[in-house]
């Protein structure tokens, strides 16, 4: 365990070495947050509440969705994993006394920590001072948001890892990245909340694993789920994570075996 913590710490320190670049990411993110707030203010112009959701709630939704939820750059993982597996660089890690997927997870935890501290938190502070961000609906919802946020990161990591590993067979990380991006932009709810979807589609989309990336964590934060619903969705999310972790382990084993057969 301690070695993986060291990898997380090392990733964090690597990011700190390139902190000069952070202002561009910070500025880009701030523009995105303000743009989404402007969009929701425009559509809510004459409406007090839509589907039981008020404008201040949507502003909060936009701020969390554009900062915390999207803080981690999953695209890089697809390329890192895809390239290291297809190029054979991964052989170096196979020689070391560690599990490569866990090593990647530890590294990305370090990256996530840095991006939350350096980009998400400052943007949230600016947005709170400018437009006002609501606190969690209750202490329970606040604490559960933290759990859902961690689950969202784990699921996002697993989805990106699945795509990165699939690149070993499909030979194209690029297409997988764009496909995942498309799915997430529509179905994760990090930009458009799933409660605005047509009623017939909502039921199904809320159960897809993508919904745990953006929609469920923010819905819990805003108190849109009851205590029992919150626990239900959390358990279901854990189920999805377990299923995907199994998928990653399976694909990883298949890829690693194939590398050995090829002889590197």
């Amino acid at each position, binding site marked *: 365990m301690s070695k993986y913590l060291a990898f997380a710490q090392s990733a964090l320190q690597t990011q700190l070495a390139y902190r000069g670049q952070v202002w561009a990411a910070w500025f880009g993110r701030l*523009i995105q947050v303000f743009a989404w707030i402007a*969009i929701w203010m425009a559509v809510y112009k004459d409406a007090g509440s839509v589907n039981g959701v008020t404008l201040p709630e949507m502003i909060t939704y936009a701020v969390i969705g554009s900062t915390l939820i999207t803080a981690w750059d999953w695209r890089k993982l697809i390329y890192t994993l895809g390239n290291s597996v297809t190029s054979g660089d991964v052989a170096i890690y196979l020689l070391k006394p560690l599990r490569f997927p866990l090593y990647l997870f530890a590294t990305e935890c370090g990256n996530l920590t840095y991006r939350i501290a350096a980009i998400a938190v400052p943007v949230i502070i600016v947005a709170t001072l400018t437009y006002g961000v609501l606190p969690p609906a209750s202490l329970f919802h606040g604490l559960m948001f933290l759990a859902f946020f961690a689950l969202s990161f784990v699921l996002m990591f697993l989805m990106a890892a699945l795509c990165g590993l699939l690149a070993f067979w499909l030979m194209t990380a690029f297409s997988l990245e764009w496909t995942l991006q498309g799915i997430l932009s529509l179905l994760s709810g990090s930009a458009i909340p799933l409660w605005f979807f047509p009623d017939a589609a909502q039921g199904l989309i809320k159960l897809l694993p993508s919904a745990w990336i953006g929609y469920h964590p923010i819905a819990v934060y805003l108190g849109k789920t009851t205590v029992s619903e919150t626990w239900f969705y959390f358990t279901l999310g854990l189920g999805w994570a377990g299923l995907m972790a199994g998928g990653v382990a399976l694909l990883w084993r298949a890829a690693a075996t194939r590398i050995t057969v090829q002889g590197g």
Partner: protein
Amino acid sequence: MQQAFRVIPFLVHLYVKSRMEYRSAFLLAIGAQFFSYACGFTSLWVMLLRFDTLGGWSWPQLALLFSFQLLTYSLGAATSFVQLRDIEEKVRLGTFDTLLVKPFSPWAYLVFSGLNIGYAGHIALAAGLMAWALTQVGVDWNFGTVAYLVAATISAAMVNAAIITMIGATAFIVVQSSHLYTIFFGVWELSRYPLNIFPAVLQWTLLTIVPLGFASYVPMAYLIGKDIAVLGSWGGPLSLLAGPVLVLLAMAHWRFAISKYQGAGG
């Protein structure tokens, strides 16, 4: 000049040939990008199902804005983005120097030896959606409006290519340009929405510092007869001028940046 006309088709031919060596990866990439942008369009459609209008724009009008923005970006970026994004790497490794000793314009070599045919997916989706949207928005079609649309498309593609080129060329002076592309794409995403919904500071940003408003909102608002934020009736003619003016600026910037190039690798 004659030599350039002979070499350019050859460079493009070589690039296309190299991409076609990995035909299935190429087709998958085009399909994936088509799918991804289609998901983006669908998100907007979902929002409009619930709210009917965004800043006074209906779904067909927004579909026109979205598709025009994507189409003109693709046309402009095909001749600039990937090629110029890589300058940073070429400067760092010192491989840009090999272009400087070729008996050929480094810009033309870079652009045409990597003319990005990968934007075919973007263009197919944007053109298809735009064709539908144009039949829905009630434009009074005559020679004037058709000519305006064609000229606005060319000008908007030039705006995109010029800004991307200017960002890429800054790598000659400061080595890094990728962080500027991060900001460019942040602003680019805004330019698919009506400018009038944004606070004044963002409106001005989109018309001055990163003038992508001229490549999306301004020409489309003019075409469908909407009041144009900030520019008013000047918007129509200005959107046609923006492309050529920015290209001239980009040419001057490119020359200035190359004159400052000292090499960072070796």
